[in-house]
């Protein structure tokens, strides 16, 4: 592997510093208590959870390329399979680090690992996440060790099934919340799976292009075109699921108030929905991906990926924070007031500490992925044009 670019190490050092600042932010929240965060007894999951769920969902989807190669036998994706696995691991570790550091008692990690309530989807997720790390590590080794190649297919199949279950679990953290109109939908599980495909692929394409660019390796347009088409299908599928989710909610009269909150008069959430999630995050990337004139444009693909990621953050912010901002309907037919913010839309202003923690987790994930690229034989030396 070429180790020419000092820019690479510069990026790694910058990422490490940002991740360290994130740890410092988390430490401050831990010492002072969550009152220094923007979270309250009304909005109990905030910006750190948006970052964490983004990373965990993207981690599952980032493994798609490896699955396509190992399980579905698509040879064209084979050169990127190891990178796909490494990125998946890195994103999951980053996301879990955020979740852990945002706990009220992060020092009780050992309790979380030893006391299980098997009726809790959260407890299942702890097992699914740690299991995923073990399986993908094994899968990666089987792909990298030549003598073990034949075992990479069954390992890839196991990893594929595992991550589908894992993302079902992540979506169900919200889908199983029957008390809140904003959640309580079986659709959230498959929607999170398709979101994982789009978000994970967008990150993978960006990092692939960054890495090849830094090392000045050859990356033929045919490879990018294939990934571009895949991203188009995934982004359109996310759009489809969002439409069906809201149509389902809109059909029942009891959900009309919640829907008008998200779609019409929810302030920041309505803005994020129409402008960032749908406009910038779904429709514009689809236009960029499918515009005939831009098919060979690498720049348009970079922009499309960045927009998909921006849309992802907006979508998760609406699901996680917006879902809590909308008040619980405990007393139907009454106007409700209380000292505990019953009956009002709850406000949430993220604090610097939460941003540092969330962003720190994201940079830690990128740091792990880029560092692995530097020290392990993961990325092909070139992705040349193929004769297929």
């Amino acid at each position, binding site marked *: 592997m070429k180790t020419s670019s000092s820019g690479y190490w510069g990026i790694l050092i910058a990422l490490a510093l940002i991740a360290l600042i994130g740890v410092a932010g988390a430490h401050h929240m*831990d010492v*002072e*208590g*969550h*009152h220094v965060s923007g*979270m*309250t*007894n*009304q909005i*109990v*999951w905030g910006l750190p959870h948006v970052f964490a769920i983004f990373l965990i969902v993207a981690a599952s989807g980032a493994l798609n390329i490896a699955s396509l190669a190992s399980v579905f036998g698509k040879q064209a994706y084979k050169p990127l399979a190891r990178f796909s696995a490494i990125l998946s691991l890195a994103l999951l570790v980053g996301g879990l680090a955020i979740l852990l550091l945002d*706990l*009220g*008692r*992060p020092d*009780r*990690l050992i*309790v*979380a690992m030893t*006391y*299980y*309530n098997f*009726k*809790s*989807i*959260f*407890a299942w997720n*702890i097992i699914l996440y740690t299991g995923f790390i073990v399986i993908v590590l094994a899968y990666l080794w089987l792909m990298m060790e030549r003598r073990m190649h034949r075992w990479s297919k069954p390992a890839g199949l196991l990893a594929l099934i595992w991550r589908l279950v894992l993302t079902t679990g992540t979506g169900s*953290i919200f889908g*199983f*919340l*029957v*008390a*809140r109109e904003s959640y309580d939908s079986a659709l959230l599980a498959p929607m999170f799976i398709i979101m994982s495909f789009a978000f994970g692929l967008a990150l993978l394409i960006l990092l692939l292009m960054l890495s090849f660019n830094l090392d000045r390796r050859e990356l033929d347009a045919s490879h990018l075109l294939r990934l571009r088409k895949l991203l188009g299908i995934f982004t359109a599928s996310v759009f489809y699921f969002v439409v069906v989710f809201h149509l389902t909610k809109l059909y029942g009269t009891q959900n009309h108030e919640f829907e008008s909150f998200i779609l019409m008069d929810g302030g920041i959430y309505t803005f994020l929905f129409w402008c960032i999630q749908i406009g910038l995050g779904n429709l514009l990337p689809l236009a960029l991906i499918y515009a005939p004139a831009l098919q060979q444009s690498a720049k348009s693909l970079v922009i499309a990926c960045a927009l998909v990621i921006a849309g992802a953050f907006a979508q998760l912010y609406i699901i996680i924070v917006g879902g*809590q901002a909308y008040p*619980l309907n*405990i*007393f139907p*037919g*009454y*106007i*409700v*007031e*209380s*000292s*505990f*913010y*019953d009956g009002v839309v709850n406000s949430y202003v993220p604090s610097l500490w939460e941003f540092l923690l969330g962003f720190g987790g994201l940079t830690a994930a990128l740091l792990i992925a880029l560092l692995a690229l530097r020290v392990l034989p993961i990325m092909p030396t070139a992705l040349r044009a193929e004769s297929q």
Partner: protein
Amino acid sequence: MKTAPDNPLPQPARRGFLKGAAAVATTLVAPGIFLYRTGQAATSLNRQARWGLLIDTNTLSEADVDACVSACRREHGWQVEQDSETDAQWVRKVKLTDQGSGHQKFLPMMCQHCENPPCVDVCPTGASFKRADGIVLVDKHTCIGCRYCMMACPYKARSFIHEALKDQLPVAPRGKGTVESCTLCVHRIDRDGANAVPACAEAVNQGGRQAILFGDLNDPQSEISLRLQALGGTRLRADMGLNPGVRYQGL
């Protein structure tokens, strides 16, 4: 080959001796045990109690509900200070205005001590738990502060402790970074059994009035059961099938 028995006494005689010894031991030790148990003597040992509250919103004034909240605060040592969005509220005053008639009423809202509590279902470590007598509590030693129970509770009954606490009371141990809620004054119930009166009820049941009635929902002869049979009571979010232990009249 036959061997002589080690024990010179025939079997029935040995059994008789053991029975006698057990009887003597019971006579000597039992009074101590039963003395110790007098606090719970009112509860039949054969039948499991299920503690509940019946709140009569028709007789509660706004001042009454304020008195409930203050009594709970004094009893458990929680305050709502400068930043009330992050302060714990074990019980809160809710003002309801009928959308049609404009009729207003006030009620205290706290943990509803569900028979099927969603907070217990979702808790990853089992820190949220329901006692055999129906009281839903948080084990402060295994709560990791994930707040999933707060997401799952349909009643917004739980609070997360956002900062370090001082001047805690012995009856209500609390801790930064964990979740807490109404305990139904479990310390009083463990001391006084069916004769217990939670602090909120004590604050409003002055002069023979029973605006908040505490009792055993499993005992058909208890006052709370008799009043529920006679006058009925509303379960909040009954559609969810959680069967809360707290019932309201006048809704």
